[in-house]
């Protein structure tokens, strides 16, 4: 087992895609870097924190982007976002006749890169539009989430705009980080140091049980690879019917959880309401056991 969480972005690409198949666009040597960081005394990265390109997955052509969470928390800035937009556009416009079977986004991001503020916010939105454009053109978009940073902020929204989300139990998917919530509404609202609470609220097991991710895996690169291969055919057209179904699901879920429940029992209450057997034991169960608990 190779921990996906402990890999760098480039290690994930090397391990997950077919060996030696990754062809990078705008590689580090081209120095397509951020124009905004030097003025803040922050070093740039040669690839602005994301490696993009074409590769093969189980012999099939895919486009892939891997965000480097160790650089700026994986935050999306102007150039980083434009690389993602370009990748998605290249998939759908297919100017070189290499239409991929899917676009894989190895997400590892806190969301908008705060150091680039406004430029980052617009960039995330452009990525969101580009994801939906690719899907509308019939190209599946897959998100893989399993880093220590997780996938937060604007990227947490974009993840749920994709066809398929794979998460490990280590991964987290959410909007606001625990520290932000605690800073805003106090430790009673969210104790950011309570790791069990953090993972009950935003971690892969919870997202699997609640349906917010489509596949749950161990923290293992091979498991992510297998899940990505299996998800290649999982195109989910965005139709009125699909969105009505989603709306019913989300509205029903809202009713399941009374307001002002204590944080200690809130997640378990929700899981029970969703029909998860053995809800009280979820946090101590392993991935295989949790996988079996998801309501049909």
């Amino acid at each position: 087992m190779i921990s996906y969480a402990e890999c760098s972005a480039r290690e994930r690409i090397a391990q997950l895609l077919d060996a030696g198949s990754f062809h990078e666009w705008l590689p580090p040597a081209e120095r397509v870097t951020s124009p905004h960081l030097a003025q803040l005394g922050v070093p740039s990265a040669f690839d602005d924190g994301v490696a993009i390109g074409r590769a093969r997955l189980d012999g099939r052509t895919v486009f892939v982007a891997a965000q480097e969470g160790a650089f700026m928390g994986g935050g999306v800035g102007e150039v980083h976002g434009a690389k993602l937009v370009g990748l998605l556009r290249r998939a759908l416009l297919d100017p070189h006749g290499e239409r991929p079977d899917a676009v894989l986004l190895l997400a590892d991001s806190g969301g908008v890169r705060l150091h680039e503020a406004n430029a980052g916010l617009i960039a995330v939105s452009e990525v969101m539009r580009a994801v939906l454009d690719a899907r509308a053109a019939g190209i599946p978009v897959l998100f893989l989430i399993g880093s220590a940073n997780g996938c937060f902020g604007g990227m947490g929204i974009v993840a749920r705009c994709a066809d398929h989300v794979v998460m490990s139990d280590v991964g987290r998917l959410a909007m606001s980080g625990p520290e932000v919530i605690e800073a805003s509404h106090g430790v009673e609202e969210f104790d950011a140091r309570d790791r069990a609470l953090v993972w009950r609220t935003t971690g892969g097991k919870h997202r699997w049980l609640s349906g917010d991710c489509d596949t749950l895996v161990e923290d293992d690169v091979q498991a992510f690879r297998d899940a990505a291969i299996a998800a290649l055919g999982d195109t989910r057209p965005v139709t009125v019917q699909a969105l009505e179904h989603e709306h019913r699901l989300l509205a029903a879920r809202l009713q399941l959880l009374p307001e002002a429940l204590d944080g200690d029992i809130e997640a378990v209450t929700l899981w029970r309401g969703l029909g998860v057997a053995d809800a009280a034991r979820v946090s101590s169960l392993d991935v295989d056991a949790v996988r079996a608990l998801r309501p049909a």
Partner: protein
Amino acid sequence: MSLPTAIETLDFSYDGARPAGRFAPVLVGVVGSGNLEVLLEPGEPPKCRVRVETSARGFGTIWQAVLDDFQARHALAGVSISINDMGATPAVVSLRLDQAVAELAPGAQP
């Protein structure tokens, strides 16, 4: 208004003995706190040029010492080394430089 913080750029140049030959650019490391990335590219023989961009200002003499050591170990000729640094220790810098050289094509290995 001059900003209180800025990136420091340091340039070094050595004459090497072992030609690195032609090779695809090599990247090691990540720009995170206490870390650095090193990009190795072919350069003009016999020079080994190093450009360091760092947020940890004022350590020019330490970079000199680390790079002198590095060049003494590898004596590369015809390489260009570019570094983005966020306060890595000399030990980590040396490690990354050695890792980068290790990824060069076998013909260039010392």
